[in-house]
């Protein structure tokens, strides 16, 4: 137990930092919503509203040399691991100088230097991949740990099962964080599993499991930190369940008609992770209102600056689409009917007559 005012032994600076990352997550997502409504975001927009604490708190338990594999609702984890707001914005807007040069969407990107590996859409796949990442740490005797997130829904995939079991048997230094936010798209947890809690799965893999309040950023940090320490000390895989709630729809288009009345409002009112942490900062931890407001102002300025910068970038060059499928050959040749053609789409493409397509009907 940490001394009063210093939960988990975090310095005051680090305590405020936790707030900064949560606020940055929320403000950046709010900016993305604005850009989405201006149709500047090319694809869908995925929110982590109400889940900022579990993402930030868990990622905060890692060292820079450690590697994390985020999911769609782990913007906060990526920011903690060094992803920048301007990268996020450019990526969503499919800019030429975005982290994936316009190849992948939303926050599907990574950087092994800073220690995060981008997910792919098929759920669960990152669990075996992170088993392999951490297997390499173990084989090389590196003092590094991996952390992989799975949603409550993704625990039903074969990839999750095979990956966590392999990592367990191989005693990989891996932490598997189940973000139990109550829903997988529209599917409530009760239709996903009969298990009473996700840590009940740990025993079936012969590994420790621990559960915490995912809307408490300190608790999320602490529980993850224990698992990280165990992994680093050679204790192998742990399962951590962070209980939280997805306050927005699966993506911005989802109207959440399937959610029982009042449920969202209740979580918003009683259990917003940022509000809760502000209360704690200003109460138990004795920060001043101004300390918090300063962070808010800094975040606003940073997101404004990032937006300006991101907007200045242009879209990728068409021919970049053919670069880097393999190390060798380094690029594909355009097909013969595209030789000497810079852009594929000429005046004839996307005519009105194709049907009854309307911007509003977009999926």
């Amino acid at each position, binding site marked *: 137990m940490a001394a009063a005012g210093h939960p988990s032994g975090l310095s005051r600076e680090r305590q405020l930092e936790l707030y900064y990352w949560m606020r940055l997550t929320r403000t950046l997502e709010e900016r993305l919503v604005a850009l989405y409504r201006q149709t500047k975001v090319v694809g869908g927009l995925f929110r982590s509203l109400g889940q900022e604490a579990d993402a930030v708190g868990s990622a905060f338990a890692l060292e820079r040399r450690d590697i994390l594999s985020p999911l769609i609702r782990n913007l906060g984890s990526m920011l903690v691991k060094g992803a920048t707001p301007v990268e996020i914005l450019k990526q969503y807007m*499919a800019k*030429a100088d975005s982290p994936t040069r*316009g190849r992948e*969407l939303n926050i599907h990107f990574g950087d092994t230097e800073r220690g995060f590996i981008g997910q792919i859409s098929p759920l669960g796949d990152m669990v075996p991949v992170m088993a392999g990442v951490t297997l390499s740490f173990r084989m090389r005797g590196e003092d590094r740990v991996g952390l992989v997130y799975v949603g409550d829904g993704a625990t039903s995939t074969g990839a999750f099962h095979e990956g966590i079991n392999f990592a367990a048997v191989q005693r990989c230094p891996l932490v598997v964080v189940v973000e139990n936010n109550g829903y*997988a798209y529209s599917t409530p947890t009760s*239709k996903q599993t009969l298990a009473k809690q996700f840590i009940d799965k740990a025993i079936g893999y012969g590994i420790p499991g621990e559960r915490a309040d995912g809307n408490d950023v300190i608790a999320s940090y602490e529980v993850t930190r224990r698992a990280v320490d165990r992994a680093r000390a050679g204790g192998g895989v742990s399962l951590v369940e962070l209980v939280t709630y997805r306050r927005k729809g699966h993506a911005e288009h989802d109207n959440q008609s399937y959610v029982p009345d009042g449920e969202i409002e209740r979580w918003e009112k009683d259990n917003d992770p940022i509000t809760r942490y502000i209360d704690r900062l200003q109460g138990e931890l004795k920060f001043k209102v101004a300390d918090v407001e300063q962070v808010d102002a800094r975040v606003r300025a940073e997101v404004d600056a990032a937006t300006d910068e991101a907007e200045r970038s242009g879209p990728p060059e068409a021919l970049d689409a053919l670069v880097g499928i393999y190390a060798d050959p380094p690029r594909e040749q355009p097909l013969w009917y595209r030789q000497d053609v810079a852009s*594929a789409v000429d005046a004839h*493409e996307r005519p009105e007559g194709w049907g009854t397509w309307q911007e509003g009907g977009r999926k």
Partner: protein
Amino acid sequence: MTAEITYLEAIREALFEEMERDANVFMLGEDIGAYGGAFKVTDGLMAKFGEQRVIDSPISEIGIVGAAAGAAHMGMRPVVEMQFIDFIANAYDMLTNYVATARYRAFLPCPMVVRGPSGGYVRGGPFHSQNPEAGFIHTPGLKVVYPSTAEDAKGLMKSAIRDDDCVLFFEHKYLYRRIKGVMPEGDVTVPIGVARVAREGKDVSIITYAATVYKALEAAELLATEHGISVEVIDLRTLAPLDDEAIEKTVRKTNRVLVLHEDTRTGGIAGEITARINETCFEWLDAPVLRVTAHDVPLPYAPPLEDFVLPQVSDVVRAVRRLAAY
């Protein structure tokens, strides 16, 4: 007079009518019940038919495809939704090893449909835009359909559900709400295995399916008015089994063939079609069979990239002009 409905609504109508017609038909998939599916294809089905027949499943493509097979053995007629067809890759073993071989190795009937939103041109990125038909066309024991019109979407879905074997039903998400049609009165099916002449022509044939049917039609119009080339467009509708007769007929008519598909080039179905034409109509060919396809890369997200990778009308125009001039 009946109103026009979209390609998506046509599929929903087929599901609805088949569930009414046959109590053994049921739906299985992620978020297909209360929510009505990611694209709302199954919207309203749970309200009408109940949770027993419209099952919201865990995120388990292996699980639900396998469960469908088991139920199908017992006389049920399951229809499984892949939330995006890209995730059918997860069930590749179950489909190619278990389902496709069930009748042959074990005399077990396996009447089931696996359906889902497919294809690109929608800024979906590498995992929400795929056309994974090639791997399944390659698998004896499976049937594969991929309609381009609302009428066919409905009529083929009815046939797929009534078929005594497993049918993979690819729905093109770019067409879902863009394409409309007037449904025929009554219980009308479109047979599996029969192609459609989407436009008659005499100089060059384009053999294609799904979204690129419209690329072909547009190109045909343009080639007629601007270049005086008469193009015949064949909409395959079914990819396995291929309608060899329809293919031969158009080849013998125009003697010049372009195979057009949205799937990547190498190993795509265009190769198979070219080989068949070669085998059966070599003497009738006045020019090589050409292919217009996507480039061989994962489909990127940014509009200029996606547009460059996928086949476009201008490509079709160029290829047809080359064929006509050959």
